[in-house]
């Protein structure tokens, strides 16, 4: 029997993975070949999707990108025995794009069968958890402190502090919440983790539960990820059956169970307090802080809420030790971060690296620069990092290293590590308008600057686009940005100014009324 790996990953499927699977099955039956198709996660080399791997005496030989139409050829080329073909790549892990990465979080993604808990265990799954069973909460939190882990969801808050505070809160009931809302455009690391190695998320949540003394966990998943929903649900079921979730897990006399909840189309529900409201079945509006979730979180109980990647990062930290993890990274940004390359770029995909690599290097060495073949513009114009409310970098600040402090200094943020490359015909005006418009569309409506200001900003930017009293509008827009930044209740309104101001800064001439300027001279 021959094992064939075809990803169930959203991107692969969007590029025809399911059709490829059907075709392979059909032809295998025809040539009565005994095969077993395993739907793995994606390695994250998206220009190679659909990537098909065949296991030939223990070795996995990759072919890609494979289309439905190519399958017949592949059979002809006897790919089931690793036969030669123009699409043959060989050992995928030898491909520099992958080889040059430091995969602590994504170590198993692509490799394992996400629908098979034994496969997870075979590849070292749950070792951290087993270790943690014999650790005190204090010890676990210490490791987190040593690791220097900071929240990967955007705020970059030291994770151990959150754990400590939740642990110290006195309550008969506490919760762990996994923030799987991944709303930022240009990001997909949570998604790939959910599709490629779901058990690792459960393990990370369990570690958190042990640290804070919680016995129930919730995953809040955005509705745009149907495949994750399927895979996670299955993972939770398997974990329950295999006694990795539920009462007295693996005779550790520790109880922990996880519930999956699916959102309903609201970006702000990624904000922790709005998320909690949504989990409680309420309107996803933002709550004031204090009280903080660590004290009054889900259902008013102390709650440790973390992003997916923060949670999975805890697994290697416990497994290898905090110091070991802290060896990676740069300055005060320790460990690795799964960066996500997208937009108008040759080799889009997921790149897990220690903090500190410059934007230029990651775009050139991994991304291969802008995609000439593609009509998005022949030369790089700007790079947006950290989602729709992220900073737009000009060509000139690409040597900025990817770490929290440098981006703060720049006036931006790494956010969730999404890197969107844009070619020269992307319009700064349109992007600035988009930022306001997006904020207006997603505003929860609680606070004045964001509820009203974002719409006013969008309107004024429309005027700028259509050339109406441009300079005056830009002056007002800057003042509006200041008001949004200083007075918004949450970061949605609070950082909407970031893209806008960075665009105005880098591309001033696109935002000024040439005619008036001319006249004034």
């Amino acid at each position, binding site marked *: 029997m021959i094992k064939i790996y075809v990803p169930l990953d959203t991107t692969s499927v969007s590029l025809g993975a399911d059709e490829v699977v059907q075709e392979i099955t059909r032809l295998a039956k025809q040539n009565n070949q005994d095969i077993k198709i395993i739907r793995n996660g994606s390695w994250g080399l998206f220009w190679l999707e659909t990537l098909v791997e065949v296991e030939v005496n223990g070795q996995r030989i990759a072919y890609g990108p494979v289309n439905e139409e190519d399958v017949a050829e592949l059979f002809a080329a006897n790919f089931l025995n690793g036969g030669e073909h123009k699409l043959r790549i060989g050992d995928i892990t030898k491909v520099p794009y992958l080889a040059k990465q430091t995969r602590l979080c994504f170590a198993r993604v692509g490799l394992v069968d996400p629908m098979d808990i034994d496969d997870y265990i075979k590849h070292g799954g749950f070792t951290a958890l087993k270790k943690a069973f014999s650790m005190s909460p204090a010890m676990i939190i210490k490791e987190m402190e040593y690791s220097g882990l900071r929240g990967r969801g955007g705020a970059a808050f030291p994770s151990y502090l959150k754990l400590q505070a939740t642990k110290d809160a006195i309550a008969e009931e506490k919760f762990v919440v996994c923030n799987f809302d991944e709303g930022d455009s240009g990001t997909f690391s949570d998604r790939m983790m959910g599709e490629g190695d779901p058990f690792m998320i459960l393990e990370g949540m369990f570690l958190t539960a042990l640290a804070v003394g919680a016995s129930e966990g919730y995953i809040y998943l955005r509705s745009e990820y149907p495949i994750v929903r399927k895979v996670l649900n299955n993972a939770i079921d398997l974990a329950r059956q295999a006694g990795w979730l539920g009462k007295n897990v693996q005779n550790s006399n520790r109880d922990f169970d996880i519930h999956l909840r699916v959102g309903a189309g*609201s970006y702000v529900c990624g904000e922790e307090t709005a998320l909690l409201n949504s989990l409680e079945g309420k*309107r*996803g*509006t933002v709550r*004031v*802080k*204090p009280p903080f979730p660590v004290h009054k979180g889900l259902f*008013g109980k102390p709650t440790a809420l973390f992003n997916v990647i923060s949670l999975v990062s805890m697994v290697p930290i416990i497994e290898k030790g905090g110091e070991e993890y802290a060896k990676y990274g740069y300055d005060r940004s320790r460990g690795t971060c799964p960066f996500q390359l997208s937009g108008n770029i040759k080799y889009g995909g997921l790149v897990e690296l220690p903090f500190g690599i410059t934007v230029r290097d990651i775009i050139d060495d991994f991304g291969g620069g802008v995609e000439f073949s593609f009509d998005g513009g022949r030369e790089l114009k700007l790079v947006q990092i950290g989602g729709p409310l992220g900073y737009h970098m000009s060509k000139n600040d690409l040597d900025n290293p990817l770490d929290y402090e440098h981006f703060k200094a720049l006036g931006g943020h790494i956010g969730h590590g999404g890197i969107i490359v844009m070619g020269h015909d992307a319009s700064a005006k349109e992007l600035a308008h988009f930022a306001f418009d997006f904020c*207006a*569309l*997603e*505003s*929860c*409506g*609680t*606070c*004045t*600057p964001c*509820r*009203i*200001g*974002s*719409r*006013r900003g969008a*309107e*004024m930017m*429309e*005027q700028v686009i259509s050339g109406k009293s441009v300079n005056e509008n830009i002056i*007002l827009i800057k*003042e*509006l940005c*200041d*008001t949004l930044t*200083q*007075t*918004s*209740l949450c970061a949605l309104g609070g950082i909407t100014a970031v893209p806008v101001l960075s665009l105005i800064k880098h591309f001033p001439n696109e935002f000024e009324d040439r005619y008036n300027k001319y006249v004034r001279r």
Partner: protein
Amino acid sequence: MQSKYNPSNAINVKCDYGTPAVDSKKEVSLTIDGQTITAFEGESIMRASLKNGINIPRLCATDSLKPIGGCRLCIVEIEGARTTTSCTAIVAEGLVVTTESKELFKLRKNLLDLYISEHPLDCLVCSANGDCDLQTLCAEHGVRGSRFLVEDRKPHKPVIDHSAPYFDYESTKCISCYKCVRVCIETQGTFALTVKGRGLNSEVCPGLFDFKNSICVSCGKCIEVCPTASLNEKNIVSMGLPSKQVATTCAYCGVGCGLIVETKMDEIVRITPNSNTASNKNHLCVKGRFAYDYVTHKERILEPLIRENINAPWKKVSFDEAFAFIAKGFNQIKEKYGNEALGSLASSRCTIEEIYSLQKLNRTAFGNNNIDNCARRCHSPTGYGLEQTLGTSSGTQDFNSIEQVDVFLIVGANPTNAHPVVGSRLKKRMRVSGVKTIVIDPMETELVNSPLIKADVHLQIKPGTNVAVLNAIAHVLVTQNLIDKKYIKNYLDKTFVQEYMDFIKQEQHSPENVAKIAEVSSYDIVKAANIYASSHKSSIYYGLGVTEHAHGSDGVMTLANLAMLTGNLGRDGSGINPLRGQNNVQGACDVGAYPHSTIGYEDVTSQKVADKYTKAWGVKQTTKVGLKMPEMIDNALQDKFKGFFIQGEEIMQSEPDLPRIAKALSKMDFVVQLDLFLNETSAFAHVFLPGCSFLEKNGIFINAERRLSRVRNALKPKVELQEWQTIAKVATAMGFDMHYNQPEEILDEMKGLWDDISEVSYDKIDLLGGVQWPCNKENPNGSPVLHQDKIIRKGGGALKICDYQETKSTADVDFPFTLITGRILVHYNVGTQTRRTKNSEWHEKDELLIHPSDAQSLALKTGDLVSLISKTNAISIMIRLSKKVKVGTVFTTFHHPDTAINAIQGWEKDKVTKCPEFKVTAVKIEATNTLSEWQITRNEQIEKQKDFFEASI
């Protein structure tokens, strides 16, 4: 909207500190605008500032609500931190805060600019003009228009909703502070409002329907907190702002809410809660806030009317003519039949000064103790039951202690309808997680099931079985050893304990047996007992479902037993509280409108007492107990009772067995009525004396908490004489000189006779927002909680043995349904007042609620007219299907005279106190298409009386 006037009178309105008070009394010190101040730990910077007179701009904060940090205008600078909102930021030792700076001013101005970019600039013609927080702030910040506004923006379509009777909603003026939504949830507890949509589309909305058809109960709180014109009284829209304010007390129910009545040109513009009164915690219900139009209704009678006999037209006369006529009438009867043939009925709607003068008239001019009040058909069993067991005929706590209660036992009371503000306060506490609720009631009230309210146990018992059920609970307490032995030992009267224990242990009281009698599950009875005993902050609140029964007094005493057995008494948060009905029914009983007791509950049969009052009043007092109301009726039927003074009681609608009442009244020689309106009782009156509404009088009401509150005239009296004057002049005309210049003089006289109010003064009442008797040398500031170190009864609390007996009125094969009568929110008792307000828009006639399954078996549907037949009489009434009533029972109200439900209620009464059995009547139900005979003749009579009145003008 919060008013901004500086009242010239005794009002001391609490100022709004923006965010709620904290429990902590631990102090921290910080610097705000250079001023070093101390604040309580956990307090917001806003509260700390406002308490120290440092004002901070704000639009979304108020100290009755948790902050949401919405408007952002309250931003302040904190040294070493980023600019933050003071309503959400918490004080900390050593903080250095700045509330005013160029930067803050600029930001606030921009925020206000954003507001008005969404706001029509109608100030000049706006109903909130001059009373609008947005307007004021824009003025303070020199906002002169919106700079951020682009001309070609598309405004979203406004919502205009004028459907509600008393207020309008217009979304165009809404600034999304969501105070309205939040008070409807947090304060009122109705959850009628929500925010629809998100972002700039967010919009306040009363669900799928307009306000009129939503679940909104028009408490008016949202209008009060709305900072703009978005939610505004129709009155303000049409009349503009008031010019004068007077603090007084609501004259409807026994909650006794403090009111600020705002008027101009001697007309009421608006009524808001008095934030300084303890009973209502700055809240009101639809009646107190809005239902006052009856006061100026054209049918108000303002001059005395007399007639020789009840089949003659009325004659308008001067007061002096009337007094002479009355003196003649009563004195003739005296001569002909003797003192015993006279008596009077005091109105619990009136002030204690007015009631006291009437009982004095009765005990001097009439020379007997034949005086009673509506407590007879209300909480007389409470008076008796609590006196017997605890030694005081009144509730043991104040309403504030609701906030301390951990277990509620609600028996036969429907507070969200009958005591709405207390209902809201109960619900607020019940929503706190961990607080438990047991409800004993045949109906599913809002305390059983409503948004975020789910009773832990609902014993939906068969009407009339209280005593059985409460004994069963006691049985469980005793047999499962859930009792407080120490308390029993130290607080109870030994002589009763052993006997009671032997009695209650008997098998007949076991949950299993009683479950069959009461038609509930024995499991629930056991659960209820366990929950009630699980805390020392368990509190009982009960109502007419306990008292208005053939064994009402037993019901009260069995309830008191539960409190005594578990030691749930005499603490803040535990006790037993009758929800007394009328605004001043507690007062009416307190000041002696009772046939067996004088002011302060002194026993009239004691010679000592008789001598005391003989001395005080200079008229010989008898030691003969007087006639109770129903006894007066029975005597009248035997021609032994001939002359009746009726102050503010519509007995021809509110007494049971109306045909009997009619017969009795028509047999009397001389009936004098003191009332606001000609009502059904007037048909039998020879004299009608015009009374003053509560808005035209001065004095004191005593509410269900024993709290004395001030009543002040907000309007010029529409009638020549105050009621206490009228009464005094009647007495004088009869030859018994009675004279006061001021109500204070009456208060002073009462203080001399009743020690429990000896330290009361009008000023003290204003200052403390009401005082609860006893208010004497020992308790100069009054007594919120009774029975603290000992139970007041001599010898300690008495466990009374009350065995359950089935009432004669129990349903049977011929009369298979049990009729319960009670109340709805918008109408008050006989409705003479509320029917003359816009409240009628919600409820034009009494309806019979019947369970769908019963309706089905009778093949009836909502809107059908049925004939409701009891053993004594029949009336016709429209039905409405409702799952809230218990199968086999039907419910209706007694608010409308054309229904006159009381015509079919029997003469069954509580054996001791003679309180009518209003809560159990066996009936059968048949489809019909006409009014009943009785109703038809009654309606004819009503017409005839109308003609008599027309003729008088």
